[in-house]
């Protein structure tokens, strides 16, 4: 379920960019059009390729800044995972957590916040792919559960922005159970008639897709995002053939009826604003 280990490093990390950078990190090669683009221009353009519109990945805090009007309040910032099953791979899970926490300045793969979108108070949870592949463990489960509680208490909409390889196997079955925990919480939000919008970004797979990412009143994806249950490698190994071009991309899911819309990053906030006008009385 967790494919973070095999993922190539996120294109937003400086080390990954360095592979393709020509001089001093000033230039970046676009994976969409293979053209070399000026980094400054990319950053100015919300990390969309100015030539072809390819959506480079952005991190959780950048996402919040993009969606909220201005300041936002963060919650459960210090909620931290224990090492519930004493998991050791190439290094102990506790050490992996510690090094990730130092590298990202986050305690886990999620930022939970409350702010305003065009004047409307909204809770947003944004997953952080750089933190162990955005994988879902107990902290993610609890932070989303608490965000749901806050939405219920304040009668505010909830948005979860997904970017994840799925459940975090280093937490064993506890990570698996977060799928049930969060989905049960979304049932309560649904019963209360409150809006929940799922935004799916590249990549969203495994247990995250098979729980909250597919349960939005609206499921909205960024263009070209990899979205699926099983990872492409697993499917290829099972059926022993190459997967068709575009398989498990946003546009493929839209065509097969599992997304309400594919929306560019630059138009996402406008889309959300309109949706909430419809949903909130």
């Amino acid at each position, binding site marked *: *379920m*967790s*494919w973070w280990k095999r993922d190539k490093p996120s294109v937003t990390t400086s080390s990954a960019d360095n592979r393709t950078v020509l001089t001093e990190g000033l230039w970046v090669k676009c994976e969409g059009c293979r053209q070399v683009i000026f980094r400054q221009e990319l950053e100015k353009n919300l990390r969309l390729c100015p030539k072809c519109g390819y959506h480079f990945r952005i991190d959780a805090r950048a996402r919040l800044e993009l969606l909220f009007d201005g300041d936002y309040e963060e919650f459960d910032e*210090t*909620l*931290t*995972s*224990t090492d519930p*099953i004493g998991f050791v*791979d*190439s290094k102990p899970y506790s050490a992996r957590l510690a090094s990730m926490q130092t590298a990202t300045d986050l*305690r886990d793969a999620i930022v939970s916040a409350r702010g305003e979108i065009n004047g409307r108070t909204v809770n947003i949870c944004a997953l952080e792919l750089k933190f162990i592949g955005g994988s879902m463990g*107990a*902290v993610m*489960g*609890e932070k989303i*559960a608490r965000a749901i509680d806050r939405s219920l208490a304040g009668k505010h909409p909830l948005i979860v922005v997904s970017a994840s390889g799925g*459940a*975090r*196997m280093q*937490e*064993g*079955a*506890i*990570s*698996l*159970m*977060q*799928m*049930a*925990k969060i*989905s*049960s*919480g*979304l*049932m*309560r939000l*649904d*019963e209360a008639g409150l809006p929940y919008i799922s935004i799916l970004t590249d990549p969203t797979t*495994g*247990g995250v*897709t*098979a*729980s909250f*990412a*597919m*349960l939005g009143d609206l499921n909205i994806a960024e263009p070209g995002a990899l979205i*699926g*249950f*099983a990872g492409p490698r*697993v*499917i290829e190994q*099972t*059926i022993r053939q190459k*997967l*068709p071009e575009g*398989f498990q991309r946003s546009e493929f899911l839209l065509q*097969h*009826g*599992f997304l309400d819309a594919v929306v560019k990053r630059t138009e996402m906030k406008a889309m959300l604003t309109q949706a909430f006008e419809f949903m909130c009385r």
Partner: protein
Amino acid sequence: MQEENRLRIENLERELAALKASNPQADVARLEGQLQMLDRAQAQTATPWEQVQLARHPKRPHALDYIQRMFTDFIEIHGDRAYGDDAAIVCGMAKLEGAPVMVCGQQKGRDTKQKLIRNFGMPKPEGYRKAIRAMQMSAKFGRPIICLLDTPGAYPGIDAEERGQAEAIAVSLREMARLGVPVVCVVIGEGGSGGALAMGVGNRVYLLENAIYSVISPESCAAIIWRDAAQSEKAAAALKLTADHLERLGIIDGAIPEPPGGAHVDMDAAAELLKAHLIETLAELKGLSPEQLIEERYWKFRRMGSFFTEGASA
């Protein structure tokens, strides 16, 4: 010791089969006795990896083996009313000691033909949609639901992805949380990740003594971490996928005993033990209102997790 035991068991099994075939009057009882003793020893001292093998034992009873033995008046219901009927999931109305229940089971096959028909117990989206449809129907008529979990995982294939494997599982999780009737889930063999959990949001969740429940198969885990599926043994230990660990972690309510040597040694006895446990559990849940059942189920899963807050600020 374990490996030795296994070899002896295999040899004895072979010998026994040959003997039965050639001479029905032979000293079968003595060999059978030896086999049972070894089976028992094997189960009691099994390592996590051996536990995985036991949970997948080819002779282990499957959902339908239990259904046939535990219930009367089983009437299977088919199809998701949208695409098709998935044979990897079996649903039906039945009676448990005369009381109507809905039973939904993930079904593996025993011989090659059945394995193919049942897709090796790997459900597709239409299977999960059938199951949740059956469960919602059961809730409508106030009947308890029993789910028997036994799958290597949800099917990872092009067709399953096209028809929304992730969406089917997600909806099943959310809708199970909404059911206003008692839901009892039992992992009878292999609790393979989200594919098993999709039918596992119960008021009570149990494992049969030799069953496993895991976020990922040991093979896949080993392939990811050590880039080597041969390290599965290590992964099986690391994942803490056996009943004792899962109970300690608060994932399951307990283990249901199997007959000596394991459920595969005596299917009838295994079914008797499970049946008694189900009757007892349903009796416990009987007094709860629909609202209480939903609330209780929510908090059961809400409490699952292990975390702390740094500092004293929050």
